[in-house]
């Protein structure tokens, strides 16, 4: 089951990468990043079956970082929305060129 959990983590991570590239909605981009972090967590927990309990301890830290990232990122989304009335990355072109 460790083996198949790693496969599931790889599939979920690839789905997250796909979503980050093909979507433009900033909130959905954030959700894809959360999915990638969760895939990494799944790999950590699966490999803790092989290496030891430290994998589960590390998942704890990853979740903390994910929570901090979501809070700060969504605050940035709100302040971007206030400037451009949009959550589409196509409209965030102030610093593009």
């Amino acid at each position, binding site marked *: *089951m460790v083996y198949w*959990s790693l496969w599931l983590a790889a599939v979920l991570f690839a789905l997250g990468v796909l979503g980050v*590239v093909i979507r433009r909605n900033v909130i959905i981009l954030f959700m894809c990043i959360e999915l990638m972090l*969760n895939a990494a967590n799944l790999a950590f927990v699966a490999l803790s079956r092989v290496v030891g309990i430290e994998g*589960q*301890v590390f998942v704890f830290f990853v979740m903390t970082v994910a929570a901090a990232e979501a809070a700060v990122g969504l605050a940035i989304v709100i302040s971007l929305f206030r400037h451009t009335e949009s959550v589409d990355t196509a409209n965030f072109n102030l610093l593009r060129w």
Partner: protein
Amino acid sequence: MNPSVVSFIFVVLAVVAVLGGIGMVASRSPMASLLFLVTTLFSIAGIFLLLNAQFIAAVQVIVYAGAIMVLFLFVIMLLNLGHDYRPDVRRGAWIVLGFLGAGVIGAVLARTITQPGLLPQQGGGALVDASVRDLGAVGAVAYPLYRDFAVPFEITSVLLLVAAIGAVLLAKRRV
């Protein structure tokens, strides 16, 4: 539990997780994406239970499927994005690039996983099972967390403080 029952539950949860991920990437509405993501997170929590990580499964449900997803839901509703959304999926070369990038990363991960000698032949898990049996599901994580990883744990609290202050400051109208 019977190993075949465990495998069956694992397959069901894995299929639900992958379908939820596909639905999240493919659905047009942010609200539908969020609900698909919650489905995926719950399935992953179930897989954590099967991997004998009960504490992590509980934290997954409380922190991820609870707190973080409520934060997303709150922002979607605050910005009124639940309806009247414009299609935001990229076209043409971006789609090709996305599948290419996902394929390359998936292939690298697959090659790493199938590398011979990475995993032991037997199921493993003796270390985790022993510490869960001796210390309990919470103690098995808490003892190394407070003993060996005490300094990173304290730094984590600083990180959360900085994130909270930063979020308030960024979302405020005037500084």
